[in-house]
């Protein structure tokens, strides 16, 4: 296989091309949007991401053959110092570019059909390309500065895509919410980068990691983690992700699998050696991860919207990844302090979560709605067997049933907590087990209701066209191909990467190998089976059992339904503080700066510019006088300076 990879003409040296290609596609589409036919536009985008995917495989081949590579495109050299884009080709970035390009490719191919006929078809693909490009730049870059820029670009693209149907108020609101919520975390990231620069004098990621230690390392790590929390939707910033479902469904697949939310986890992994310097921060990471995982698991149980359940499941899985990363850094075995466990799960999760979202997309596409409760799309098995199968595979993989890919990576999530070998460590482990149990439970509920269930009731269409009987059917071929490909990955990727081609060894540069712990595997499988069993028992062949659950655990679940009031609180903060403040600034600008400084003749006195402007009388002899006086003053000052 390596020989095959070597044939691809893009190697580690040209890794920047992987990010540049989708960016070029974006530029072409954004500029030529009006000139190019939408259909052609979409193919430009798909071709770019396709070549980028092949290129990233080439980078992998080069990496396997020649090891790490740090490249730099010198952008400008001034006064002896060079400024440029440096990019790191190591196992982490190679893994990420393959994940991002492959998921983007699958999603874009899927979107060709899904978005067909949309009036902003071309724009959709342009934004999509930029999204992929900025995420690729984020994972490849070797500079914190560029990382920050692409980080913000990712945020911007998610804003554009979540608010894709901006005529719809809820979509606009959701986009705003996603943007502002993640911005809170970004402030931390920015300050962290500035602190790192001030204490090391460089933006280079590797140099920063190497030269920071002690308190400074802890401070920087903590600040960076704030950014990661925002992007990866960790408690209490998790509120934006479920609302992000307002965008087109393939966008959700992209956000949840490869771009956007993966960025936070990636950041922690990229800066992992810095986090290891600060055990306190690692505990913080692990606990936040755990809280998020359990909280989101509960929220998923209280939700009936198809895509929102998937969104909460993403939040909970991201929490588990954070937990694994934090715990891995605290491991009693120094050899085991690496981010491989969390990253393995990020990879497998990326594929099966994309799969799940795309199945949701098929269902929603079939009933022409942009969102639906799981009861509205029941009976997928009857009308759309392929989609139902994909859904079940994805759910089982997420639940962690062997030998699906989720099973192998879940082990990497659970093992680090045990290796801390202290009581709090064991508590973390049990927390993680509970979260896994919850995962199995909510996925069972989802799969059971949607795939099995009776015939769906008439659907209240969201576009207001009245109700009509939904006809669920499988997707056209163009949408099915990505489904099948991702389904195959969800089944086989884990076992291949565990036993066929050791992924852990790849990630840790051969320090470690994939270790199959029988006991842990058993525990993990039992948890999953228990979750599925409880779920089956509870939800099998019942109509709208949620009401029953509500009565049973009314109090806590009410809290759950209100999403722990966090949502309301955040909304309040955004509406009452951020926007009011922004409005205030705008008023200041409008009234004080603009009116007084530019328009208002009344307030023209104190301005420095005004005074200087007064010199410009318009009389030519005045100008000559100024000219002469200036020359005389220069002579006088120079002579004085010489004689004194």
């Amino acid at each position, binding site marked *: 296989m390596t020989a095959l990879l070597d044939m691809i003409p893009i190697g580690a040296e040209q890794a920047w091309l992987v990010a540049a290609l989708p960016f070029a596609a974006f530029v072409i589409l954004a500029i030529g949007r009006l000139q190019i036919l939408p259909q052609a536009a979409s193919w430009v985008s798909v071709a770019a991401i396709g070549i980028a995917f092949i290129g990233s495989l080439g980078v992998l081949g080069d990496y396997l053959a020649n090891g790490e590579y740090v490249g730099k495109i010198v952008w*400008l050299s001034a006064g002896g110092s060079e400024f440029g884009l440096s990019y790191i080709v190591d196992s982490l970035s190679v893994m990420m570019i393959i994940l991002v390009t492959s998921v983007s490719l699958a999603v874009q191919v899927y979107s060709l059909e899904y978005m067909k006929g949309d009036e902003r078809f071309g724009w959709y693909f342009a934004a999509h390309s930029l999204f992929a490009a900025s995420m690729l730049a984020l994972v490849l870059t070797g500079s914190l500065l560029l990382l920050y820029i692409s980080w913000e670009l990712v945020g911007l693209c998610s804003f554009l895509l979540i608010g894709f149907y901006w005529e719809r108020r809820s979509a606009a609101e959701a986009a705003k919410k996603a943007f502002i919520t993640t911005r809170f975390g970004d402030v931390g990231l920015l300050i962290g980068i500035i602190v790192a620069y001030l204490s090391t004098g460089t933006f280079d990621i590797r140099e920063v990691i190497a030269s920071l230690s002690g308190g400074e390392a802890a401070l920087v790590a903590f600040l960076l983690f704030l950014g990661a929390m925002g992007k990866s939707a960790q408690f209490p910033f998790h509120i934006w992700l479920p609302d992000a479902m307002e965008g087109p469904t393939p966008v959700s697949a992209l956000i949840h699998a490869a771009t956007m939310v993966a960025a936070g986890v990636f950041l922690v992994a990229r800066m992992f050696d810095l986090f290891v310097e600060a055990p306190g921060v690692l505990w913080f990471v692990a606990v936040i991860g755990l809280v998020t995982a359990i909280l989101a698991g509960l929220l998923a149980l209280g939700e009936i919207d198809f895509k929102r359940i998937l969104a909460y499941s993403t939040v909970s899985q991201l929490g588990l990844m954070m937990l694994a990363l934090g715990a891995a850094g605290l491991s009693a075995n120094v050899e085991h302090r690496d981010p491989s466990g969390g990253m393995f799960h990020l990879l497998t999760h990326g594929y099966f979560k994309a799969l799940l979202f795309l199945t949701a997309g098929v269902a929603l596409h079939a009933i022409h709605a942009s969102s639906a409760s799981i009861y509205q799309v029941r009976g997928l098995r009857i009308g759309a067997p392929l989609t139902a199968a994909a859904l079940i595979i994805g759910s089982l993989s997420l639940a962690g049933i062997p030998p699906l890919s989720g099973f192998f990576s879940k082990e990497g999530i659970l093992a680090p907590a045990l290796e801390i070998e202290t009581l709090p460590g064991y508590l973390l482990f049990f927390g993680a087990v509970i979260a896994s149990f919850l995962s199995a439970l909510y996925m069972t509920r989802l799969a059971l209701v949607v795939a099995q269930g009776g015939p769906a009731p008439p659907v209240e269409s969201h576009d207001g066209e009245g109700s009509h009987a939904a006809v669920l059917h499988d997707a056209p071929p163009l949408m099915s191909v990505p489904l099948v490909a991702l389904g195959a990955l969800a089944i086989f990727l884990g076992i291949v990467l565990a036993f066929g081609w050791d992924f852990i060894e790849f990630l840790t540069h051969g320090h470690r190998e994939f270790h199959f712990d029988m006991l842990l595997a058993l525990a993990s499988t039992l948890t999953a089976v228990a979750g599925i069993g409880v779920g089956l028992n509870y939800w099998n062949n019942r109509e709208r059992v949620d009401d029953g659950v509500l009565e049973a655990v009314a109090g806590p679940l009410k809290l759950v339904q209100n999403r722990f009031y966090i949502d309301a609180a955040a909304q309040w903060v955004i509406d009452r503080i951020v926007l009011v403040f922004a409005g205030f600034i705008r008023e200041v600008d409008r009234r004080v700066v603009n009116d007084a*400084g530019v328009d208002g003749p009344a307030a023209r006195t104190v301005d420095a510019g005004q005074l200087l402007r007064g*010199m410009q009388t318009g009389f*030519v002899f005045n100008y*000559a006088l100024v*000219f002469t006086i200036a020359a005389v003053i220069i*002579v006088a000052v120079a002579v004085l300076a010489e004689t004194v």
Partner: protein
Amino acid sequence: MNWALLLPGYLVTGLAFGAFTLDLIVPRLSRTVLVYGGAAVMAAIGVFIIVANDGETSRFAGGILIFDTYSAFFFALFVILAAVTILGSSQFVSSIDSPGEFVALLMMATVGAMGMAAAGELITAYISLELLSFSLYILASYTWKERRTNEAGMKYILLGAIASAFLLLGITYIYGLTGDTRYDEVASGLSTLSPSPGLIIALAMLTAGLGFKVAAVPFHMWTPDVYEGAPIPITAYLAAASKAAGFALLIRLVAVALEPVALFWDWVFILLAVLSMMLGNLVAILQSNLKRLMAYSSIGQVGYLLLGIAALGADDPAKPAAGILIHSVSYAASTMVAFMVLLAVWQQTGKEGVRDVAGLARRNPFLALALTGALFSLAGFPFFIGFASKFYLFTVVATAGTRFLVPVGIAIFASLISLYYYLNIVRQMYIEQPEEGAGPIRVSRTMWLLILGLLVAIVAGGLYVRPLAEAAETAAASLFGGE
């Protein structure tokens, strides 16, 4: 040997005379021939200059003209700027009586500018400068039936005459002190002199005369009035090419001829630089006429460039010289885009106020986008050429010596001030409503292509500035006989 560079000067002069003659023989000269032909030939000459330059240094007639990569760099810049201006005037020339003369004068101005870059001797430099100035005096008052334009021309020529008297006095004193006017002889003469009142007068007069040409505060007073009164294509040429020509002369003069006294004199340039960037950017905030606003903004830009001139006295003068070269190109390109958009708006509406571009994004999104790009570039936003060039210039100046740190700090502060009025224009275009009954603005295909080309250049230059930076570095190195 680099004698091929002698050719462009003759070619452009020949073209100019050709256009003069054609204007006489064929009174209603076809606009197509004149504008497209003229621009195409000028652009071809630009390409020829770039190809023909072999990197050698050739001294013409004992060194009164020097042909090296530095000259070639500016030759190409001036010829291309002239081509852009001619192309941009395609609609303007049909509204005037003798279009051939207009184009010919632009070409003569270009010859003058080229002479300023190549001059290796003070008399040649002076005559080239006057050739440029005279052409511009006529061009700036070209639509003389209009009072405003007439006034602008009057102010320009009267103040220009005074400035050239000062400059001549300075040249005379330099000659009296050193016995020669060739730059290298002047340098060897000056190196044996200790500072004296005579030398100070010489330097001050040169500074005043050339400060006028590049519009440095406090010798800038003519700039806003002339920019506002002159026809827009000429304002564009004044802002982009005439200013660059002034710096082309100034760099070689300061770096070669005044090299022995450059350290002694650098505080004057620092002072002019700081005054220029503060005054230019502060007063620009208050302007309501876009041409006038651009005039003040250009004064601010001159301040940044003058910092580079001041740094020429430092250990490694090639670096600041390269910085000035890059920023000159970047400034010229960005400012051209801005003026071409103003020209397009003016041609349809006859208006040029800040308020008159309100809602431009709705009236013509392309023009609004182009103007936004140009202003962002001038303000120094990342990913436009203005950012790269400003960054380069400030870095090389700041590393030239500790005494430049505070001026560079002020320059960065001044850039922040400039953001205010640039963004104000952008806000007008995108947020404010257009006037009642203001229809869409149409752009001719020529103009559209021209603006698009320049816009692509400033974006491409911002994304990948290395080719330009390397060209400028080679050019700057050739000044000092290196490489």
